[in-house]
């Protein structure tokens, strides 16, 4: 492989930041849109997290997810509120579940399978944290109302990720 052009080298070096910016943009935008249920978001920024997870591995994905959540809450205005604990708990739990499934990808589980599992764990961890930290009286009984749409959102995120995932790495693109 010949030496990559200077442009390509710069793009490669800042690829991580570019992905973070994308994830952040999606996260903040979603957070700003009016929603029928204030708590519920599609989780589009997880497309990027999932992408990084399958292409670079669990640690880069965790880094991305955490930075995205913290910076995102800075922009959305809940950085110093208890709410951020819910989002962090959800992000970590969903990352953990998705990483655990990663060895099974791509043979036994698809991106949609990983994504919907991540969505389920995210919602559940958020709820558990909300009960534990914020509202001790909150009923578990309402969780299914959140979980089932979360699973649907997870499927959507997985499908979009599959659609944008670049072709498998064994195709080498000649730098030009």
């Amino acid at each position, binding site marked *: 492989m010949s030496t990559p052009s200077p442009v390509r080298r710069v793009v490669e070096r800042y690829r991580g930041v570019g992905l973070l910016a994308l994830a952040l943009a999606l996260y903040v935008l979603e957070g700003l849109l009016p929603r029928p249920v204030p708590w519920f978001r599609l989780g589009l920024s997880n497309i990027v997290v999932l992408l990084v997870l399958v292409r670079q591995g669990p640690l880069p994905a965790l880094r991305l997810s955490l930075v995205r959540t913290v910076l995102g809450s800075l922009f959305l205005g809940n950085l110093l509120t208890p709410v951020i604990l819910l989002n962090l708990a959800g992000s970590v739990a969903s990352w953990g579940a998705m990483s655990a499934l990663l060895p099974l990808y791509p043979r036994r589980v698809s991106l949609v399978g990983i994504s919907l599992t991540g969505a389920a764990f995210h919602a559940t961890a958020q709820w558990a944290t909300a009960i534990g930290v914020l509202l001790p009286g909150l009923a578990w009984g309402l969780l299914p109302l959140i979980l*089932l749409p979360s699973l649907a959102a997870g499927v959507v995120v997985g499908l979009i990720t*599959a659609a944008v995932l670049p072709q498998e790495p064994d195709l080498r693109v000649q730098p030009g």
Partner: protein
Amino acid sequence: MARWRLKALDIPLAVVLSAAAVIPWMLPGEPGATAVVTYPGGEVRVGLDETRTLVLRGPVGKTVVRVEGGRAWVESSDCPQKLCVKMGEIDRAGEAVWCVPNCVGVRIEGGTGVDAVTR
């Protein structure tokens, strides 16, 4: 662009998670202690250990609520759809049956009478 293909574990995962998601709805709730019957004239509290029949009048007619054997239900009602009657018996804290047209409702309160206590 890559295409998505279903893999072996996808459906089992979806099924298991969906089933797990529904679990909170299947847990038995706290046993009730009091049936609180609401009607246009106010409220009547009936202990679930009592046996009573209440005839309540509302905008569309008569609604009969019965409490017996630790359960409460709407025996009959003059409303057109009689959804309240079809709802059946309730006995757990937090459950409720309402006759919306006739403005009559029965809800079950638990032992302490409150849903949650903040610390």
